């Protein structure tokens, strides 16, 4: 069992947990992820390691409540336990000899971007970052990204904060202005990583993306997370999750992510019904107490 030491709400429906997991923390490197299972009967879901502290033995995860398991996870509090928490999984990212890197994070993708930029910053690499979200209140880890960036741009789709528009608008501008980077890291929804990679391709700048396919075991034994990279089947859990954005078949990835759409809906509806019942019972119970 793995204890939740700290819980923070970064934005509506986006939460941060600090988990006590000394062995994971000791080996964790930027680019790696964990698989967790809340309880018996629960499913295994992958989440990127957003930060880690090997001395304190803690691992930070950030998740958005998008379905049954993440919603249920969101109901847990500091002091609660998670049944299974396994990692670090996947290949760590490395940036030898880089002088200047551009990091782009969209939505929840800002969380997995953070440890990479933090490492680059510590290595003395010049870091430029662009982070964006649908609206100002969904923007996460702004201070953290700022602290590891030499220059940072903020974008919102609705213009409620920073630049009005997608992160790709700023990306295009920087490239058009002739700014050079040794590498561009793009993490966010698959469509953002796809469009971003298309933008950087003509400039010939190496572009790293972090893929988020469906996973089960996360150890390379099932191939559920397979993606096509440069025409070859790769397992994102053991060969990735970071890949060359210019070689990834994003359309296939996007299609495959929709495999369990119906089942995910059924599961979430059931959870919400059960959850509402619990809340109603609580409220009714409170009313009865008030009558007494």
């Amino acid at each position: 069992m793995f204890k939740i030491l700290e819980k923070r709400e970064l934005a509506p429906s986006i939460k941060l947990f600090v988990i006590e997991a000394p062995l994971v923390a000791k080996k964790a490197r930027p680019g790696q992820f964990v698989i967790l299972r809340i309880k018996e009967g629960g499913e295994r879901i992958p989440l990127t390691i957003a930060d880690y502290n090997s001395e304190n033995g803690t691992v930070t995860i950030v998740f958005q409540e998008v379905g049954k398991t993440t919603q249920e996870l969101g109901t847990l509090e500091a002091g609660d336990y998670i049944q299974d928490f396994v990692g670090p999984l996947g290949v760590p990212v490395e940036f030898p000899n880089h002088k200047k890197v551009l990091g782009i994070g969209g939505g929840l993708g800002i969380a997995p971007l953070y440890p990479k930029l933090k490492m680059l910053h510590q290595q003395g690499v010049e870091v430029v970052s662009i982070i964006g979200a649908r609206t100002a209140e969904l923007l996460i880890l702004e201070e953290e990204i700022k602290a590891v960036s030499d220059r940072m741009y903020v974008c919102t789709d609705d213009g409620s904060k920073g630049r009005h528009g997608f992160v790709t608008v700023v990306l295009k501008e920087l490239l058009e202005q002739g700014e050079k980077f040794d590498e561009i890291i793009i993490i966010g929804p698959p469509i953002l990583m796809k469009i971003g990679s298309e933008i950087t391709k003509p400039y010939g700048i190496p572009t790293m993306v972090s893929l988020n396919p469906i996973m089960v075991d996360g150890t390379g034994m099932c191939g559920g997370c397979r993606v096509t990279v440069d025409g070859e089947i790769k397992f994102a859990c053991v060969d990735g999750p970071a890949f060359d954005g210019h070689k990834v078949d994003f359309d296939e990835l996007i299609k495959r992510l929709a495999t369990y759409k119906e089942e995910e809906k059924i599961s979430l509806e059931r959870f919400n019904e059960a959850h509402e019942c619990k809340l109603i019972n609580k409220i009714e119970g409170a009313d009865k107490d008030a009558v007494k």
Partner: protein
Amino acid sequence: MPLNRSKKKTPMPTQKPEVRRRNFNEVALGYSEEEAVSEAQRCLQCKKPGCVEGCPVQVQIPQFIKRIAERDFEGAIKIIKETNSLPAICGRVCPQETQCEKNCVLGKVGEPVAIGRLERFAADWERAKGIHPPVIPKKLGKKVAIIGSGPAGLACAGDLAKLGYDVTIFEALHKPGGVLVYGIPEFRLPKIIVEQEVEFIQQLGVEIKTNMVMGKVLTIDDLFEMGYEAVFIGTGAGLPKFMGIPGENYLDVYSANEFLTRINLMKAYSFPNTDTPIKVGKKVAVIGGGNVAMDAARSAIRMGADEVHIVYRRSEEEMPARKEEFENAKEEGIIFDFLTNPVRIIGNENGWVKGIECIRMELGEPDASGRRRPVPIMGSEFIMDVETVVIAIGTGPNPLLTKPLKA
């Protein structure tokens, strides 16, 4: 003691095919005491028993069978457990026809003694009575690490513990058992039995640490630093092979490992009572002819598919699956397409499988494996309409553990 001169094994009761094809309960129901005694009385008690030689752990077969024939069931299980800590599992899933039963002298004139069924009977009998906690041996004060909690790791752990070693098993998944929990379905090996046999190993003093992906969480070097003096690697062959044909990444194409892991380990058959989903279309094709293909096909029927095909490129004769599993699958309505090989998977505009294009094969000269090599018959291509494809063409060793060593 009367001798049962029947040339055939005492039949074991099973769930009726039309019933069992829609549930995940165990198919074979096991011998009653009377049936077990009657089968045990077939054993000739050979002075030089070939059966023992055929058993990988040399269970003293004639001795335990003699106890069953004498109705001393407790004595029987004691003898088995001297050399085998997992009898309820081995009695069910060992391929006895190529091991102990292959060498049984009765097999020369009829059917061999049903050693597996008798071992299973003895183990089940003990479980029903309450398993005796084992005698814990004197500790040697030496630590051994075992990587992987599949049958090899569990057996090794059990034997080392009996010798007095402090044994720790490191398992990557959240449950111990390896293929016994994620691969072999409930209807062949109930998971409660795996749990109980694993508990027995733990009672011997073995510690099992789950969620330990070796090579990631810890390396072999770390284990030696932690004071382990020896390491046993029993990580199996869990890397799925794909065919390399077009369309393999369409939605609803599964490796057998993924399909079976979702169903067995994650209990997707109980969805949405459990959280892991699975998609099984009305028409399913399973590619391959081994036991894993049989397990996947029989699981697909139980998940509610109307029509399940086994597509195998050779003929019935070359099929590596156990005869018993093949027979069970046929009884449950699985359709066998022999001498048929998929050449591509066809999908619709959203990426969902809608069929597989196959080609008919004929058998040519024997290949390196000694089996006749399948050769495509040009122009015999046809399309099979299916909504789900499960690829069960074999697995290789997972490089996860050794990869960091090379780097």
